[in-house]
Every structure is written in C-alpha cells, then in structure tokens.
C-alpha cells in the first residue's frame, strides 16, 4: 500500500504518484528556486493547469517559503503545499481532491430535429408492431381454445391448383394436365394456338 511513483507526461515538471485510485502530482521547489522571481509563480500555474489530469496537486517548497506565503492562495485553488527541511516534510495545506464532474447528458441540438423526428417515427412503428404482435398472439390463443386444429379449416375453397415445377424439362408435348379452372372449355386456347399459322387475317 501507499503511493508509488508513476511516469509523468513528457512536458510535465515534478513527479507523479498513484495513491490508490487517486493520482497525485508534486512540483518540488529547491532553495535556489525561491530567489528566482518567476519560479514559484510558474510552479503554481503549472499545477493549476494539471488539475484536470490529477486528483491531487502539491507544491513542495523549502520550509522558509511557508513563512512568507498566504495559505489561502493554495487552498482556494485546491493545491496542496508541502514544506520540507532536512528533518521532515509537513503538509502545510492539504490538496483538495479533484472529482470527475458528472457528465451532463448530451442535449440534442435543435439542428438534429430530423434525427429526433425519425427516432420518434421508429418508436411509433415499434409500438405499433408490438401491439400487432400482441393482438395476433391473443387471436391465435382464442382460436386454438375455441376450435381444435382441423385440416379442413386451413383448406382454401376452391382448392388452388398449385403445381410444383418439374425436376427436368421435356420438350415434347404431353396430354392435357392439371391446368387452372379458367382454362376449361375456353375457345381461346384453340384460337391462340393457331397464331402465326397464316390462316387468319389480322382484324386490327
């Protein structure tokens, strides 16, 4: 248990640690940094920009630095302050853990009205299909409960003459077979079979 150091980003100053589920980053100021006018400011600003990447951000500075700084400057920004000397390190200002902000649901923009409309249409269709399926289930259940299945019930009257195609096709003519009812006694069969035989003038 405890923190363990993790690699920092290429451009990042300081060191990074993993503390359980939290990631911490510490920028360490050396005694020589304190006399450089911009070093402290730079460190604090860097920590501010890294707040999105780390839950905990600390500035570690020599104890001397703590005597001349207002701790509220750190606490208001959630940045922790560690002061160190040769004997120990003290957390002068605790860092405020940074939690992920709740994701706001994406709002459908006005310019996606077409998508919304079509989604609504899809939903309506789905509900309609669901109603139809439920109705069909009810009807089938009722039908089965009131009347036992009967082959006769499913027979279409008059029986349609459904013919299956032959396995192989034979060119030769065959005796009259199973043709639809409207073929029966139809004189056009004879008339049309003579088309092109040259015997009749075209009425047209």
């Amino acid at each position, binding site marked *: 248990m405890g923190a363990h150091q993790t690699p920092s980003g290429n451009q990042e100053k300081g060191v990074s640690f993993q503390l359980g589920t939290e990631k911490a980053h510490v920028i360490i100021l050396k005694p020589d940094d304190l006399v450089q006018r911009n070093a402290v400011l730079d460190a604090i600003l860097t920590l501010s920009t890294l707040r999105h990447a780390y839950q905990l951000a600390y500035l570690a500075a020599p104890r001397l630095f703590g005597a001349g700084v207002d701790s509220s400057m750190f606490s208001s920004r959630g940045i922790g302050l560690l002061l160190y000397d040769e004997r120990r390190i003290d957390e002068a200002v605790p860092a405020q853990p940074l939690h992920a902000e709740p994701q706001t649901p994406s709002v459908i923009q006005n310019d996606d009205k*077409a*998508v919304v409309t*079509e*989604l609504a*249409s*899809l939903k309506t*269709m789905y509900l309609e299909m669901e109603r139809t399926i439920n109705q069909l289930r009810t009807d089938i259940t009722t039908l089965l409960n009131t009347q036992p299945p009967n082959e006769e019930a499913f027979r279409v009257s*008059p029986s*349609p*003459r*459904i*013919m*299956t*195609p*032959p*396995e*192989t*096709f*034979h*060119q*030769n*003519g*065959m*005796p*009259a*077979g*199973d*043709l*639809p*009812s*409207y*073929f029966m*006694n*139809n*004189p*056009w*069969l*004879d*008339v*049309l*079979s003579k*088309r*092109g*035989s040259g015997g*009749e003038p*075209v*009425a*047209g």
Partner: protein
Amino acid sequence: MSIDNYRSHYTFAMDFGTSDFKFGPITLGDQPRIVNNRGYFPDKNSVMYKAFETTADVIVGDDVPLYLQSAEDLSSRLIYPMRNGMIDRSDGQAWRVVQTLTEYGLNAFKPPTNNGFQGYYVVASLSSVSPRYMYERLMSAFLQNNHGMIRAVTVIPQPFAVAIGHGVTTCVVIESGHGNSQVCPISKYPIRAAQVALNRGGGDANAITSEILKDAGYGDLANEEALVRKVKENIGLIPADLDHAVKEAKQSPRKVRARYRVPGTRVEIDLEKDSWSRFLIGEYVFNPNHEIFESYFNRGMPRPRDVKMGDTVFRGMLDFGEAIAISVERCPVELQPMLYKEVLLSGGNFSWTVPTKLQDIAVDAPTKVKLLLRDRGIKNVSIKMTNAPQFSVWHGCIIYGFAVPDNYEWDWQRLEGWMKVPN
C-alpha cells in the same frame, strides 16, 4: 390440343392496373399475387433508409409502408405510375417504378436452380389506349436486368385479356375505371381501329356525388375524396329512366331515402327529401347529357371534355350507348350482330347494386347499357358483367402466354407476338 409441359409451369402474367399490380405464374391457380401499383423513392439521407441497409432507389411491394415518412413527402415520393392508365414518355420516376415492379414480380417466383428452368414466358397487359411508346418502354424494362428470368415477353391490351379470360372470342369489352372508359371490339384479335375512348369514369361519379353532398348540407364532407367514393358506392343508383325515377322519388321520398353511416364514426349522411338525387350519380356515368346536369356545370362542376392523350381522343359527353354503337359500326357489317350479342362490362365503375324495393325504378349496369342501345334502335343485344372481374385480365394473360406458339414473333405493326430475350 397437346399441352406444352414447360409452359404449363412457366407462364407468367402481369396486370398493371390503375391501383393494383397483379402478377404470378400459372402455377398459382385462380388467384394472382397482388401489391399496390406504386413505388416509393426514399430519402437516402434518412436514418430509416440507412437502418434497413438497402441500396434500392425505389421501394415497391409490401415494404412500401415501412418507408413512408411525413404526409408532405407522399406527393413527391410515392408514385402511382398508371393512375390514368398511361405513363408520360418522359416520366422517369413512373417508368422506374414499373421496371422495379417487373423485377419484384419475377423475383418473387424464382425457381430453384438446376431444375431445367430456362426463363418464363411473360405476358403483361396495358390499357387499350396505351400508345406505341408504352409498349416500347415496357418491353425495354423487361429486356434489361432480367437475369435469366425471362425467355420471351409480350404485351397485350387489357380488354383483349378480359375477353380471353371470359372465354368469348367475338365480343365488345367495355372497361371503365377511375379516369376513363374504353369500348373495344374483339374478334379473335383486338379491332384497334374501332376502339372508342371516353373521358369519363368513376372519378366523374365522385364529382357529382360531391355536389349532391354540398346541396344536402354536407359541404364539409364533400371534399374528402375517400368518403365521397364510399357515399357514391353506397347510395348511388342507376335509373332505368331518370325523369321517371326522379318523379317517383319526389313523390315517395321515404321509399328511396338515402342514408349512409360511415363505419366506425358517428357521421351519418341522410339526403332526406333530396334522396331523388341519388339517381343522378348512376345516370351521370352512363349518360351525362340530361339537362338536369347543366345546373351543376353552370355552378362549376367540370364538364367532361374531349381530350387527346397519346394517340387517342377521349370523348367527354358521349353516352355509353352511342359509344358502343359508334365502335361496333366501325367493324365489318357481318360482324356487328355477333358483337352486339356479347357485350362484356369490366371494371369497378360498373359495380352498381339494385335494392329489392327499388327494382321498379333502378337497374344494374348491364340493364342500363341495354336500355341505352334500345333507345338507338339496337335491340338484339346481350350485356354481361365479366366473371371474376378482379382477375379476368390476369387470367386472360395466362391463357395467352400458354397457348400462343413460341415461334409467333413480335411485330410492331400488329403489336402481338413473342419478343425473345437473349440470354
């Protein structure tokens, strides 16, 4: 006559009606498969189009409702190619629908491989007034992309198919649909030169019904086409004699009272004392020349006019009796008595019923036609409704495809014969 075993299994018919596309092979027996004669051009950017992973640019058949989107889309995307029986030469969308339907129909009956199938003998039917370019475009649609499904193809006029399906070789077929009507003599062949076309059909009966509803105080309902059609079918009557029927009806309004309740609603139409006007509906279809209709024309109801569509002039005000007489008299004199003996009425516009209590003043369509011919001195006539009017065209196409010899080749002069498909 010996039976061609191959064609007893592989004859295929397609009937392109104004509303329905009926199709299927001979092996279906008495009833073809039916889908709407329409196609839908989906929006390729829609999520529905992508969700169904289709690459088709036009949808036909039972899947069309799955793709329908807003009502605003219907007029531009849902195409009924043959609403008036004809397709304009340059109407690319309509022709695309027709081609897709032919592929759809054939693919629905694709035989298993390696059973000796060498393509169907396909017979398609078109309106009798279709100009030559429609035959050309339809043939072209069959020849493209048939994928070995067609061995030979031909196109025949719908009235000719009706005569074949009815089993009468010499007759006059009168087809009456939504937009127009045609009188077509047949004597073993269609007698094309004798055809007479009328610019009058079920849509005109709807128009007069709409005016009647307005007069009776139902102006708000008079603009709903589907409702007007239902009212027409339920309260319309054909008078034996219009003057007599109107007089009787006005004297006994309760006897002829016209009432219709729209199923599933509280809407009820009751013409009450104006019930005599129900006889106008049937009369207008058969003879729009009665002076009573002038008041409707004066009020703005469109008068059926003579129009030319394709190669054919459609007469507006010709009554059915006169149209039949003109048509028959264009045929050889010897043939005329035989034609009058077999007059077949085909099409939904002739489906009028007669209530039992009104049999003294109302008649059915065959009787009305007989009376109109009698008024012109033509007496030895026999008028019948076709058997199975819904399927008679398809039946006739099947018989034609089965019986016509394979070596009877297509001829663009006579518009008959087999166009062989190179495979």
